[in-house]
C-alpha cells in the first residue's frame, strides 16, 4: 500500500504508517545501512523497508547485529543502527548494547514489541526490554503510538550522538507500527539538548590548568577514547609538541595520535609497555584527556602516580574524581577545551623529560621483538608484528578479547584514529567478526583485518555466513593457541597453573571457512606468515588464516590485579622467552 500525502497541514507532511515513519526517519537521519533480524513483532517494519533507500544486513544472531552497528559507529563516527524483534530478538541484543555502553559508542537499537493492549500480560514473545536495558543504555523509550515514532527516534539519535555518546533503545509496539500518523521529518526535530549545568570549563580552572602545565617538569598526556570521539588529534599533537609532553594511550585511545610520532609512548596499564607505566609513576603532572582512569589503566589506586597533579579534561562530569582525584577538572568537549588553552601555552625548550622517558624505552628494547633471533616457534606477537609490516600499519584492525587483543595493542602500531576497533570496557568475546562486518559497511574502501582468538571466534563464527552473503572483503586471522589464552595466563600466574576449563577444542577453522566458500590457510611457522598474509590480501573475497601459535605464551608485561602500576611481571629473562628465541626473518 503506497502511502499518499493526505494532510495539508505542512508542505512536507505525509500520512504514513508507523513502520514507514521508522524508515523515513532513519533515512532523514542519514542512515544507509542497518543490521537486523526479523520476527513477528517487527514484521510491519520489515514490510515497509522496500520503499526506502536503506540496506539491511541480515545477521545470524542479534548479538551480531548490535556488534555490527557498534563496529559501524566506531569506524565511521556515525550512529549505528540495529533492529530486532520482540522477546528473544531483543534479549539477544543485550550483550552488544552493554558493549557499546561501556565504550560510549553511539548506537540506536530498534526493537519490535507486542501490541500495546497486551503489554504486561506475558503475551507470546513479550519481554520488558526497556526494563532489561535500563542500566545499559544511555536512554531508552517504549513507543505505543504511531505519531510518537518520528519524534522519539529523532530524539534517540540526538541522545546517542550528543555529549558522551552511547546506545539508545527504542521499543515500538506492533500497533504503533501499523497505525497511521502524519509525518514531517523537520517537525520531529528534538528540542536542543538541555544544557548540562555542570558542563563548564571555568576560566579559573583553565588558568589553574595552564599554570600546572607550564610549571610541570615531568608531564604526561593520557589519551583515551574521548580524544577520538572529539576529533582532537591535531590539538593533542600541537600540545604535545609545543611542550615536549610524551603521550600515553588507553586501549581505546590508540590511534588518537600516530604511534609513529616521536612523542607517542604506546599503551598504558595492565599490559602497557613497561616504560609507559614507569613514566606515569614518575610523572609530576598527568593531563588526562577523554579517559576515565579505568582499573585496567591505573593499577592500585593508592600508589597511582603518587607525585603527580592531575588535570582531568572530560565531557562527563560524573567521571571527575570517580577513581582518581582531579586537582583541576575541565569539563567539556576535549577539542574545544584544548583550543581554549593552547593559545595560552608558550613553547618549552627543555627536552630532558622526554629524553629520560626515551631512556626507559631503551632498557626495554633488549626485549623488543625486532632485535631477537628466531627459534622456529610461532608466536602471536610475531604474527601481529608481521601483519603490521605487511599492511604498512594502514589496515583497520578489529580484535576480539584476550591475549591476542593485548598483543595487537602492543605490536600493531596504529597511526590513524579509528583504525583499532576493540571492546575495551566490557571486554566482550565474540565482538571481532560482527564488529568488522559493521566497520566494512562503514568504510568499504579500507583494508579490514579481524584478529580473534580460537575461543572468541567460535562465539560468533556464524556471522561468517553473513559476511559471505554480503560479499564483503574482510581478512580473518585466528590466533589459535588451543586455550582460552588469557584465562590460562591468569591461571598460570595466580592459580598455580591449574588450567581448569581453559583448554578448548576447535574445529578446523580453514574447513569451517571452506564450508562457507571462504578460502583459507593454516600457518605453523614464522616463515609462512608473510605468504599467507599476502594471499589473504590478494584474495578477491574474504580469507581466513588459522595461525597455530605457541600454546602457553603469556602477555608481558603484566600489572597483577591490585598491584602498583610499575610492579610489572616481566617476561622471564631466561627460559620461556619467545622474544629471545625468535625474530623476524632477515
Amino acid at each position, binding site marked *: 500500500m503506497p502511502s499518499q500525502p493526505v494532510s495539508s497541514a505542512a508542505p512536507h507532511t505525509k500520512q504514513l504508517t508507523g513502520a514507514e515513519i521508522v524508515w523515513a526517519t532513519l533515512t532523514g537521519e542519514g542512515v544507509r545501512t542497518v543490521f537486523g533480524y526479523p520476527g513477528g513483532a517487527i514484521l510491519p517494519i520489515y514490510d515497509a523497508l522496500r520503499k526506502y533507500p536503506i540496506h539491511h544486513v541480515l545477521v545470524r544472531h542479534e548479538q551480531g547485529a548490535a556488534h555490527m552497528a557498534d563496529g559501524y559507529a566506531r569506524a565511521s563516527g556515525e550512529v549505528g543502527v540495529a533492529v530486532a524483534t520482540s522477546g528473544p530478538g531483543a534479549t539477544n541484543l543485550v550483550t552488544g548494547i552493554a558493549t557499546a555502553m561501556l565504550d560510549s559508542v553511539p548506537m540506536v537499537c530498534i526493537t519490535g514489541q507486542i501490541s500495546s493492549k497486551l503489554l504486561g500480560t506475558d503475551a507470546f514473545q513479550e519481554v520488558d526490554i*526497556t526494563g532489561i536495558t535500563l542500566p545499559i543504555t544511555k536512554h531508552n523509550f517504549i513507543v505505543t503510538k504511531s505519531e510518537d515514532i518520528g519524534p522519539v527516534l529523532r530524539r534517540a539519535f540526538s541522545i546517542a550522538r550528543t555529549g558522551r555518546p552511547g546506545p539508545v533503545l527504542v521499543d515500538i509496539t506492533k500497533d504503533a507500527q501499523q497505525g497511521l500518523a502524519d509525518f514531517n521529518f523537520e517537525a520531529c526535530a528534538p528540542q536542543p539538548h*538541555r544544557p548540562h549545568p555542570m558542563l563548564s570549563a571555568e576560566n579559573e580552572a583553565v588558568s589553574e590548568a595552564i599554570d600546572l602545565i607550564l610549571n610541570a617538569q615531568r608531564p604526561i598526556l593520557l589519551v583515551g577514547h574521548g580524544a577520538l570521539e572529539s576529533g582532537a588529534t591535531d590539538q593533542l599533537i600541537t600540545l604535545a609538541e609545543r611542550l615536549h609532553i610524551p603521550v600515553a594511550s588507553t586501549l581505546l585511545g590508540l590511534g588518537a595520535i600516530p604511534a609513529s610520532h616521536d612523542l607517542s609512548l604506546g599503551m598504558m596499564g595492565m599490559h602497557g609497555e613497561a616504560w609507559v607505566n614507569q613514566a606515569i609513576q614518575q610523572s609530576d603532572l598527568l593531563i588526562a584527556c577523554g579517559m576515565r582512569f579505568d582499573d585496567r589503566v591505573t593499577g592500585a589506586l593508592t600508589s597511582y602516580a603518587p607525585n603527580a597533579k592531575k588535570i582531568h579534561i572530560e565531557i562527563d562530569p*560524573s567521571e571527575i574524581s*570517580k577513581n582518581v582525584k582531579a586537582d583541576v577538572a575541565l569539563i567539556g568537549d576535549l577539542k574545544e577545551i584544548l583550543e581554549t588553552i593552547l593559545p595560552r601555552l608558550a613553547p618549552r625548550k627543555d627536552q630532558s623529560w622526554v629524553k629520560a622517558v626515551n631512556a626507559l624505552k631503551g632498557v626495554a628494547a633488549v626485549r623488543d621483538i625486532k632485535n631477537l633471533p628466531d627459534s622456529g616457534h610461532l608466536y602471536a606477537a610475531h604474527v601481529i608484528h608481521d601483519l603490521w609490516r605487511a599492511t604498512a600499519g594502514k589496515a583497520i584492525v578489529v580484535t576480539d578479547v584476550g591475549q591476542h587483543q593485548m598483543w595487537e595493542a602492543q605490536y600493531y602500531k596504529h597511526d590513524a584514529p579509528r583504525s583499532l576497533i576493540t571492546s575495551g570496557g566490557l571486554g566482550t568475546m565474540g565482538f571481532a567478526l560482527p564488529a568488522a562486518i559493521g566497520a566494512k559497511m562503514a568504510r568499504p574502501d579500507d583494508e579490514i583485518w579481524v584478529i580473534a582468538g580460537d575461543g572468541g571466534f567460535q562465539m560468533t563464527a556464524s556471522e561468517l555466513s553473513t559476511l559471505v552473503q554480503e560479499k564483503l572483503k574482510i581478512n580473518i586471522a585466528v590466533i589459535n593457541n588451543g586455550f582460552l589464552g588469557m584465562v590460562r595466563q591468569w591461571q598460570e600466574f595466580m592459580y598455580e597453573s591449574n588450567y581448569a576449563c581453559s583448554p578448548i577444542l576447535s574445529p578446523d577453522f580453514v574447513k569451517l571457512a571452506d564450508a562457507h566458500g571462504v578460502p583459507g590457510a593454516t600457518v605453523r611457522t614464522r616463515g609462512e606468515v608473510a605468504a599467507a598474509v599476502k594471499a589473504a590480501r590478494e584474495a578477491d573475497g574474504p580469507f581466513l588464516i588459522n595461525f597455530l601459535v605457541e600454546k602457553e605464551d603469556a602477555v608481558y608485561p603484566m600489572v597483577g590485579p591490585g598491584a602498583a602500576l610499575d610492579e610489572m611481571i616481566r617476561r622471564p629473562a631466561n627460559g620461556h622467552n619467545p622474544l629471545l628465541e625468535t625474530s623476524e626473518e632477515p
Partner: protein
Amino acid sequence: MLHTFVALVEDKPGVLTRVASLFRRLNINIISLTVGRSERPGVSRMSIVAEAPAGAGHRIKASLFKLESVFDVDDVGQLQCVTRELALIKVAATPQSRAQIFQLSEIFRARIVDLAPESMMLEITGAASKIEGLIQVLNEGDNQILEIARTGRMVMRRGQHTSHVLEAFQLSQPEDEPIIPLTAEKGSENLDVISGDPNHPM
C-alpha cells in the same frame, strides 16, 4: 553521611525507576524519596535523601544529571532549606489514656485526625527529628503505636532561589504560555497540612 537532593524530572511512567535504579547501581541506600507534582505541568519534583560517603555528592548529582529524564538537580545538603515530613501515627487509646495523648499532640503541634473507641490517629508535620521525638515520647508513655506512615522528607531552599531549569524554561517559553504560580492546585486537600510553621523549635 546523609545527602539530600532535589530533582526535577519528567512526569512520565518509568522515571522513578530510572532514578531509583541509579542509586541501586551506585550501591547507595535511599533513606527517603518523595515524588509529587511541581509548579510546572509535566515536571515532577523529587526530594531524595540518601546515605553515602561524604565525597559522593558530586558524583551522585552528576550521575542524576546524566539521566535524560532529569531536568535539574540540586544538592541541598549544605544549603539553607526548609525540610518537612508528614507522618500519620495510629496509637492504641482507651477513653482513659486519650487525655494524655491529646496533651502530647498539643505540645508537638500534631493533630488528631481520627478517633475510634480503641485508637487515635495523629497527624504531624515537621522536621524528621520532631516526628521521631513524638514517636519516642509515645513509646515511653506506654502508648502502643499500632501503625506509622511517613512521607519521607520534602525539601525546598529558602529565599529567592529558583531552579536553573525553570529559569531556562522561562527563557525558552513562548510568551503566551503562563508560568504556573507557586501555589498548590485546586482540590489539593492537604494544603493546610504542609504549611506548618517553618520556625517551629522542634
